[in-house]
């Protein structure tokens, strides 16, 4: 068991590091109360993703991945900018979520990670790349973002969860299989962007209606 890591090439090590950082950031997002910090964490996650894509691109010599990295960097710059603006416009800077019992959420998160790894195990046996073990982490990131969406009450944090989920998917694509076809990637990105804008419009409407972005108010729409 001692030291097998040193024999792995540097690029793979870097990708492993990126994977770990992604996971760390996912957990940080799960535990973060303040919206502004949440957006920053999301931006950091995007940056990590860009970094790992660049490493993959450089080490495998697949030049289209550079393009992919460039496209991904939209999420590091543009989306956080939009979100920050939204937060300012809706004056939510000082809003905090009332989270129930962060440790419990984290514990569930741990279970999710184990589950994701167990699930990814047979899949990653099939993959041939050195970094295939990151597939489990990517899947965990997706599931953790999902968990985050479940535990949040505010609409904005749910959108961030949604976007983070997409980060996880991209990471799975680049690290485990060295990228998916460009068309698919662009398509997903476009979807996300459109989604984000539609959400933005929705926010204004929700707030006009209920004077707040608490999603619990939506429950009053139910007929009974």
């Amino acid at each position, binding site marked *: *068991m*001692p*030291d*097998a*890591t*040193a024999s*792995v090439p540097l690029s793979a*090590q*870097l990708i*492993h*590091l990126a*994977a*770990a*950082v992604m*996971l*760390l950031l996912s*957990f940080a997002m799960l*535990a973060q109360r303040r919206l502004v910090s949440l957006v920053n964490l999301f931006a950091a996650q995007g940056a990590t993703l860009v970094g790992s894509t660049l490493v993959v691109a450089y080490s495998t010599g697949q030049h289209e991945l550079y393009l992919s990295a460039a496209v991904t960097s939209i999420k590091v710059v543009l989306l956080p900018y939009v979100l920050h603006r939204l937060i300012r416009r809706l004056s939510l800077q000082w809003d905090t979520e009332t989270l129930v019992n*962060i*440790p419990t959420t*984290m*514990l569930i*998160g*741990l279970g999710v*990670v*184990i589950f994701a*790894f167990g699930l990814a195990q047979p899949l990653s046996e099939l993959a041939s790349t050195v970094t295939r*073990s*990151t597939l*489990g*982490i990517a899947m965990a990131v997706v599931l953790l973002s999902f968990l985050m969406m479940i535990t949040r009450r505010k609409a904005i944090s749910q959108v961030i969860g949604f976007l983070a989920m997409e980060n996880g998917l991209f990471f799975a694509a680049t690290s485990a299989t060295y990228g998916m076809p460009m068309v698919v990637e662009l398509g997903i990105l476009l979807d996300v962007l459109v989604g984000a804008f539609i959400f933005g419009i929705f926010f204004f409407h929700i707030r006009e209606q209920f004077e707040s972005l608490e999603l619990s108010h939506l429950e009053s729409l139910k007929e009974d």
Partner: protein
Amino acid sequence: MPPMIMNGLFTQLLGAIVAVSLAPLFLGWVNQCRAWLSNRSAPPLLQPYLVIRKLLHKDAVLAENASPLFRVVPYILFGAMVTAAAIIPSLGTALPFAVCADAIALVGLFATARVFIALAAMDIGTAFGSMGARREMMVGFLAEPALLMVVFTASLICGSTALPTIADTLAGRTLAIYPSLAFAGVAFLMVLLAENARIPIDNPATHLELTMIHEAMVLEYSARHLALIEWASALKLFNYACIGFALFLPWGLAHEDNPLALLWALPLLGLKLIAAGAGLALIETVSAKLRIFRAPEFLAMAFMLAVLGLLVRLLLGS
């Protein structure tokens, strides 16, 4: 091999003496950095020594109902911290005494010290004492397993739970990135802050009744007893710093076969301590004291991170 053993004994003794004598200095350095960063004029660097000296010269005042347990605890506390210093490879990895106790035993030793000081705090039967004991034990039951998990991450990488072996293996490897160690590092930092009564959890500089932990426990101590406790706290901080160096910055320790390396291991340790002290002060300055019931959350995060590090180690193999 007598020279080898002599060498080991020398490293051992030197390490312990350096720890005992430098610990207050390190504390003074941290306090000085904190003062600078918050635009206050700093107390002298040697202030902790002066405090200890002053306390040692005074007459001890004991509560009337203090039991013998209360009187022996400062010595036990101090002894435990010096013993811990003898296990941790701060200067060299040739430590004969470290055979007696591995990292798990080290965590156990810290736990022993904690239990004793908490018992002593309850002994007089004042409201503050038992409150401090309760809070200290609360911090302990989250921080202690987190520390253990940090150690486990490193020992899974190295296949050993002996601290000198861990430090040796980590220092001797070709440079590689261990994400699991990054997780463990963050967790360790959080544990260090909590266990040494530093800012997000406790503030060593105040006696604010709503928030104090460590100070509440030692309220009834005075003179030589208090001096020993203060010294032990300084040693504890020093020990934690050295554990951090052994796990995350293991370079520059002297090996068994090379006693002369001690000559530059000592200044290197000094450099590491200066950097660590400044970093610690910076963290304390930029963070705010948490409400007491946010503390479990903070520590649970540390614990989770450490477990996550262990998981990452297993799953990524790195």
